[in-house]
């Protein structure tokens, strides 16, 4: 396996699009439930937790970019092989692959569940699951350029949703946040940890890095994306805590949807229907990006053609969506996904760093020796 990725130059995209890729994969179904999850851990000091996790993620991204910059044009799959050898490297790569598949499954079934709860209680899972997977196949067949395009366009198609927060902001109660720092440090940290499922997704950078045209701007684009997602999460959490009372907030599975539906117009009531449907446009980039990642990683690791993986994974996911409809089982999958993700996304880059250092040093030494001999 080549450590550096060789690809056609017309597959490259500008670092500008990295912002949209990362921003759209971070914001998915997770954000719908974030205010409640954080509130359960850190109560009304949840905003501190989110800020805390933001600063942590900034560090993680820095580390990731640092690691990637040690190579000319490599992705994490190549780097792992370089550091740990062929076998361990590939096993670690496979863990990524499995993690993405579980992540994709969790997004898919959560969205289907949301639709079932809010709009069609009697709908069979396979209808929406099948339709979404068909769309994912259709998109991924177009390759990375189309995947980037989808994340870019759908980003703009979904931003109007945030104007709906204005209504709850007008009925905001600042008293809900007092006294500040009521939660203990431990609670705040576990609140930060509970946001991990929502904020995940920037590990994508490890994989798309070779495709970025102007690599020097990668860090800026990624950091902006993370700042944007955090700001979004923060605003929604603060508004939810300020608007809902404690008991209201803890009883709602997806408080964000309830925030959005407060706005009404003379021709439109019940915004939740519109939002739940519109949320499909938030979910589709997620599904598409993950699907592409899976096919791409499988090709890098095992030289399986991307089309084969695409169809096989789609069929597996389709069967899974039919079988899984129990709420608690879905929660278990989300927990599993966030548990694997926590280690892979938030801890692993720091573990990787010393290895990269050691490797670099030995490489330099070898280089020097060669130099001395010559």
């Amino acid at each position: 396996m080549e450590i550096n990725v060789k690809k056609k130059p017309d597959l490259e995209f500008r670092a500008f699009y990295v912002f949209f890729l990362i921003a759209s994969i971070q914001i998915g179904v997770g954000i719908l439930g974030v205010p409640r999850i954080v509130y359960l851990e850190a109560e009304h000091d949840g905003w501190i937790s989110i800020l805390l996790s933001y600063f942590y993620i900034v560090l993680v991204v820095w580390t990731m970019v640092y690691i990637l910059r040690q190579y000319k044009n490599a992705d994490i799959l190549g780097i792992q092989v370089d550091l740990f050898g062929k076998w361990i490297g590939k096993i670690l790569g496979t863990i990524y692959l499995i993690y993405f598949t579980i992540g994709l499954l969790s997004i898919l079934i959560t969205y289907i569940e949301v639709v079932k709860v809010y709009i069609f209680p009697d709908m069979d899972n396979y209808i929406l699951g099948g339709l979404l997977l068909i769309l994912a196949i259709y998109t991924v067949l177009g390759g990375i350029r189309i995947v980037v395009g989808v994340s870019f366009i759908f980003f703009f198609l979904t931003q109007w949703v945030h104007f709906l927060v204005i209504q709850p902001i007008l009925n905001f109660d600042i008293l809900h946040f007092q006294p500040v720092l009521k939660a203990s440090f431990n609670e705040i940290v576990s609140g930060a940890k509970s946001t991990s499922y929502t904020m995940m997704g920037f590990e994508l950078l490890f994989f798309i890095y070779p495709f970025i045209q102007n690599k020097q701007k990668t860090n800026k684009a990624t950091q902006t994306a993370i700042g944007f997602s955090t700001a979004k999460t923060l605003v929604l959490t603060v508004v939810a805590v300020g608007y809902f009372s404690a008991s209201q907030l803890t009883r709602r599975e997806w408080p964000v949807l309830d925030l959005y539906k407060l706005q009404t117009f003379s021709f439109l009531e019940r915004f939740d229907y519109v939002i739940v449907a519109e949320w499909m446009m938030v979910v589709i980039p997620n599904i598409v990006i993950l699907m592409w990642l899976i096919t791409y990683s499988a090709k890098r690791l095992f030289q399986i053609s991307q089309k084969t993986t695409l169809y096989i994974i789609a069929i597996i996911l389709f069967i899974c969506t039919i079988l899984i409809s129990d709420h608690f089982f879905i929660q278990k999958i989300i927990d599993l996904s966030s548990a694997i993700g926590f280690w892979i996304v938030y801890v692993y880059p720091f573990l990787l760093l010393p290895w990269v250092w050691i490797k670099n040093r030995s490489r330099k030494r070898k280089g020097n020796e060669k130099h001395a001999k010559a």
Partner: protein
Amino acid sequence: MRRSGSNDKNIFPMKIEELEKLLQNRFENNPDLSFTVYDHENKKIAVFFISYIVETQWVHESLVKTLLEGNEPWTNKAILNNIPLAAAAKKTKLQELLDGLLIGKVFVYIEGEDAALSYLLLKKEKRSLGQAETESLVLGPKVGFTESLITNLNMIRWNIRSENLVMEKYTVGKQEPREVRLVYIKSVANTSDINTMRQRLTELDIDNVDDSSVLMQYLEDSSRSIFPQFLSTELPDRFCYSISRGRIGVLVENSPTSIIAPSTFFSFFESTEDLYMRWNVGSFLRILRYLSFLLSTLLTPIYVSVVTFHYEIIPTSLLVNLGQSRAAVPFPPILEVLILELLIELLRESGARLPTKVGQTIGIVGGVVIGTAAVEAGITSNVLLIVVALSALASFTAPNYLMGTTVRLIRFPMIFLAGTLGIVGIVYGMSFLVVHLLKLTSIGRPYLAPIYPFRWEDLNKVIFRLPNDFQNKRFISYRPKKAIRYSKKDARKRRDIDE
């Protein structure tokens, strides 16, 4: 006609009787080949052509008369010097003779010479210039292309008077060759685009081309998509507007429709009229067209989804009205909508096929009489009548007829999705549409440019139109050779208040 390789050999000199036999053989059962042999000063001279595609009067007056009145024995050289006709050429191959005869050339052959002489004296029946039928402008030039390629080329030359205007000639069709012209401005148009188009034209292996719209389907990137990827227009005005901005045009003999590539999705909603209007009015009109595209594809599906599944979305006061108008209708909403949509499509189709005067009558009968009757009979509701009429109206605002029909057709899958999955289905349909548009290309250029790949500088030409001092660049998503039209400095001079 291009079958054997032996057609490409020199056949001259040969006996006139042999030549006649050879040609008669090729034009078997064709009484129209006129082959006359004159005896002049002991030399046999043959004049041959196909009678009705040649200006016979010119043949008599300028050619035959001069030939017979001469006193010296004729040679090719003498003929070239003495006959008062332009565009003479020497032809030696049989294939050249056959091709020449078919496009209205007159040949003169003097026995013993090593070449026949040809004169282009074609007579082509054509209609005079008139207004374009499928596209119309309120402001600006109204003349449309005609079926005559020469007339069209003439109009373009008069529109773009530049030595950089290139009109490459190609012949398409193996069995019935037809002349095709590739038109572009060589100092502006992108070279790789020109090469792509050239390659597609030369590699085309078909027996005949019926019309430019057929050729267009052969040349397109994705022939399976519902969206047209090349712009077609009947207006020389619009054609030249596109050419001068670095796009490539294709004209086909005997077709009044020209092809323009590359095209983006947005260029189908563009009209040259936006340029002729004040910039703010032009922008408003353009945004109106985009809005009508959305309206036309989404209005009826939204009605279906709301009435079928989500009546909670509508506020109570509105819902009461809707309920009352639908109370008498026995059908489910999707059936009701399909009936009415079908009615509108029937009206449109019959209006398009019938003569103009009858068409108007049909429009009134269909629209007013059937519409009101349908509501009174309880087949449809009043509200739906408004909705369907509005979306039909909106679909006609696209300046391009092909895009208009596409827009009308996309509505149907949307209606089905809305009827089965409600608003979720509509969003799904829209998403699918966006992905599909993203995947399309037009001679390799992305269809959704400049939205994706994103070009900030191009937005002011696409979504709206800013005043001219902002338009100092060409549409750079097409990567023209010269991106700059005029310097920005001169266009926008900054001045203080009282200067």
